[in-house]
């Protein structure tokens, strides 16, 4: 669906994006993460055609984005990181404006559907200036999906929203993703992305340092298996015992559990548990620990670009 080939963008003496290669498949929900100044917004803006790359090219459905901007505009729905709406218009007028611009068929019913989907029915005749931040965000998403685009590019869509509005937004995005659209989303709230996205990309200093599914990246970043064990008894003796078990390279005692670094195969984990039980260890809890996206992000040691 999206292909970025050696994309590069320079602003005066700053290289915002350098040599960015990326492929996003149709139907994927791709999360773009990275510290401030990593080049996420620049990459997204080149993806949708707002910015022209200094070199390289962005393709959507194998067609260069800048070759036919009208076709790109019809194919893409984009929400920038900082935006505002025409405050002097009413909700339905705003959607009507974009419905006309996109030549949406069956305009009235489509507008009604979008207003209902965004839960803005009661605000239909209200001025946009009188809406809350969350409502404006929902309206922006409504406007973005009004023409039924194949690709949604959302830059920090949950920024500035309260927790309730964020949950609502996530629900809306889930609904949209259920219809098979491709979504590219960036966010600083990584837990949010891990819930939503099936693939992620990590950018730093204008370069994509990691990309793929969260599992794939976890495997690359953390090749060893981490097991967590809770058991009764003397912790020091237990730790000594566990260290003697096969395929265990290290044991770290935490507050109320042990963290076991296991270098065997995944199907050998039950054998380890059996051996522990057979050795008389009173196991109360035993599971494989998987890093969440935040921990993964931190383990990549990514720092904000100064």
């Amino acid at each position, binding site marked *: 669906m999206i292909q970025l080939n050696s994309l590069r963008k320079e602003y*005066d*003496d700053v290289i915002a994006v350098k040599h960015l290669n990326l492929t996003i498949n149709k139907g994927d929900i791709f999360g773009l993460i990275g510290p401030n100044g990593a080049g996420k917004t620049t990459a997204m803006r080149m993806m*949708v055609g*707002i910015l*022209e790359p200094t070199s390289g090219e962005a393709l959507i459905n194998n067609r260069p984005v800048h070759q036919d901007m*009208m076709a790109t*505009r*019809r194919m*893409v*729905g*984009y929400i*920038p990181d*900082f*935006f*505002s*709406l*025409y405050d*002097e*218009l009413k909700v339905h*007028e705003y959607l009507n*404006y*974009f419905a*006309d*611009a*996109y*030549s949406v068929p069956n305009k009235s019913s489509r507008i009604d559907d979008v207003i209902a989907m965004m839960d803005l029915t009661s605000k239909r005749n209200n001025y946009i200036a009188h809406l809350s931040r969350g409502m404006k965000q929902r309206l*922006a998403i409504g*406007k973005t999906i009004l023409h039924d685009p194949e690709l949604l590019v959302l830059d920090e869509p949950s920024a500035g929203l309260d927790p309730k509005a964020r949950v609502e937004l996530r629900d809306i995005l889930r609904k949209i993703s259920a219809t098979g659209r491709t979504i590219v989303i960036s966010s600083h709230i990584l837990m949010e992305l891990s819930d939503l996205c099936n693939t992620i990309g990590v950018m730093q200093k204008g370069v994509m340092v990691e990309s793929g599914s969260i599992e794939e990246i976890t495997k690359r970043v953390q090749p060893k298996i981490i097991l967590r064990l809770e058991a009764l008894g003397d912790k020091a003796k237990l730790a000594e015992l566990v260290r003697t078990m096969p395929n265990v390279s290290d044991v770290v005692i935490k507050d109320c559990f042990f963290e076991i670094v296991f270098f065997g195969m995944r199907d050998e984990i039950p054998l380890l548990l059996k051996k522990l039980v057979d050795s008389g260890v009173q196991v109360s809890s035993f599971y494989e620990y998987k890093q969440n996206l935040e921990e993964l992000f931190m383990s990549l040691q990514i720092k904000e670009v100064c």
Partner: protein
Amino acid sequence: MLKNAWNNPELERNIIYRLRPRNIILTSLLTVAFCGFVVIIVMMRRSNYDYSYDFSRDNGLNLFLFYVGTSLFFGYFYSYIAASRSVIGEKSRKTYDFLFMAPMSDTQVTIGKLLGSTIHMWFILGILTPFIAFAAVRSYASVSLAGFFVFYGILLSGCILAASIGLLLSSGLSPKSSFISSGSTIGLVIIAFVAFMMGFSSSDAGIISIFFPTAFIARYNQYSYDTSLTDFFGTPIDKGLLTIALYAWLSLWIIKAVIRRIRNPSGTYLNPWEALILFVGLGLFLLGIHWNKYIQESYEWDIISFSLIFNGIVIAVIMLLLTLNKESYLDYLRNRLMNRPVRFMSYQSPPHMLFFFLSIIFLLDIGGIMFSGISSWSFILAALLASWVMIAFLYSFCLLVQLAKTIFIYSGSLIAILVAGTGLSLPPIAIGVLNLPDKYNIYSNPVSYIIEMQNSYYVWSGFEYLALPFGLTVLMVAMLAVFAWRHYQLKGAVARRMKE
């Protein structure tokens, strides 16, 4: 244009946007009332000319045209300001990205914004229509029904020209420059009125011509109010129709440039061939008007033709100069040093472009005089000095704006606007405050200087008339030296950075 005006979502939104604040009606009514007030003031100030007892046809026509013209000039003014904020406004309000991504053609967006900016004009025209219609039906003040329609045509085409200039500013400049430009114009209107109340020029032309840089529109609109016939390539044609054609010609090319720039800030305004066609068209217009003069032995060079060309170029140069910034120049130099292809016009006003423009203007000026058959050396000198003043004034103005932007960068644009506006308005205010003799009115602005300098009498009538061109020449040379030094340093810095 009609196709793009019809069923245009952007126009529809603009109309809703501009009509929603209900005060548009109040503003229009107040404008018309305010102009009535100005007319009364003018009548009172011209105490030696009692209009209340002398309603001869000529005076009545003058009064009618002054009142209606001034009211509608505000319409131009509102349109210009609204248009000059339209694209930049979207960017600063952060609504631009959604507009950019909407699949409307660039022409649709441009036409929508252009016509949407002229709403005030339509309102003012609506309020004035009964007055104009009454004058036309009763044939009051020599206003005929045909003249009435030509008059409307001139006003509307003039308004579109003003709005298209505003839109060009808005689509080509940075937010701050555009704000300074439109803000300066607002400031100038206020200051001009204050200067007028303080005693400066009581003539309508004097007031309106202060509204630089829109003086071009104002002055030639006034000229167009004279609906008498003129020879155009030997054929008598209504001056009003010619004016409409001129406005339409200028608007056409400006709108073309806007369409290219509205969603592509690095787009070229006009390519060299298009620019050539534009200027050939203007040349033909001037040639047509002066046809009889050219084919007659008694031809005398008309310096107003010069000022027509100058003012047209002046507006373009001001727009370019206002964008003078280090980044674009550095960008230009960097690409040159790295042997990358450089699109000359996409770099907004690097200094070499400024000199290029100024040199062309000056050469055209000299060439025009050489081939004009002017016999009087004093006239040639007057024309050269006048053009030199225009160039020097423009350059000083641009540097002033640039200086204000640089010094007050942390204090916001408002101070920069005040500095630029005050700098521009000091001469007319000083003339008013110091109660200088009328002859010093030539210094109120470069347009009036050029117009007045057509009278060769001034050139030989005293040092005060030559002080400005000589003073500005010295200033220019000094500034060029500083600029050349900075250019040298900058180039060195860039080269060093590239080497690293």
